[in-house]
């Protein structure tokens, strides 16, 4: 199954992963990654914005291409939008496959594409001031591994 969601409120990744894995009885492998707002430093909040006409359709295309590329049984992609605080999940990817390598690789592939090839814009608040986060060179290098 392909399950792609854009959520504008805090979520518990375990709930979604649990129903996702139950939809694939007898799967050989499932790999899950959860990214959270880091608590270090002086970051008070993070805000993710998106563009509705492109963001969810783009995530659906990403899910479909990951399933085809790695021969998955299914994939779960969840991304938050809106304002988040340290410790809150931002993103959750779970890939189900018959063998572990495909599940690991598909999760890595999906995260690299969500970080630097999906329609999201991130800014963080420090000492009360908001600052836009520019993509980093290493994000592009990670993405280029899949070309």
């Amino acid at each position, binding site marked *: 199954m392909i399950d792609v969601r854009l959520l504008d409120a805090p979520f518990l990744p375990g709930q979604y992963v649990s129903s996702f894995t139950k939809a694939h009885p007898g799967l050989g492998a499932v790999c899950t990654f959860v*990214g959270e707002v880091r608590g270090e430093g002086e970051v008070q909040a993070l805000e*993710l*914005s998106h*563009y509705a*006409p*492109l963001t969810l359709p783009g995530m659906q295309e990403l899910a479909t291409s990951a399933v085809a590329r790695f021969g998955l049984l299914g994939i779960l992609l969840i*991304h938050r939008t809106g304002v988040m605080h340290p410790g809150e999940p*931002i*993103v959750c990817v779970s890939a189900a496959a018959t063998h572990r390598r495909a599940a690991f690789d598909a999760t890595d592939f999906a*995260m690299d594409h*969500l*970080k*630097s*090839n*999906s*329609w*999201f*814009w*991130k*800014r963080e608040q420090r000492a009360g001031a908001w600052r*836009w*986060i*520019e*993509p980093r060179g290493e*994000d592009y290098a990670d993405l280029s591994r899949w070309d």
Partner: protein
Amino acid sequence: MAARLVFLGRLQDVAGGAEREVGPGALADILTTLSPELALAITDERVRWALNGELIGEHGAIDLADGDELAFLPPVSGG
């Protein structure tokens, strides 16, 4: 009726808002009505454009009609 420009990410700060209504017409003419800073920012080659939810391959001549939405998408940062 009017057309709408949508500014994503840091372009919102340059534009002073997430969107702006503009009169229908040629984009080249509309650009002259914006601040030079904003016109420069949205025509930067790293900024992608989407007309009515469809990405445009290259920045080119566009005529905006009533109800059209042209979005300006700077480099992304998700995850």
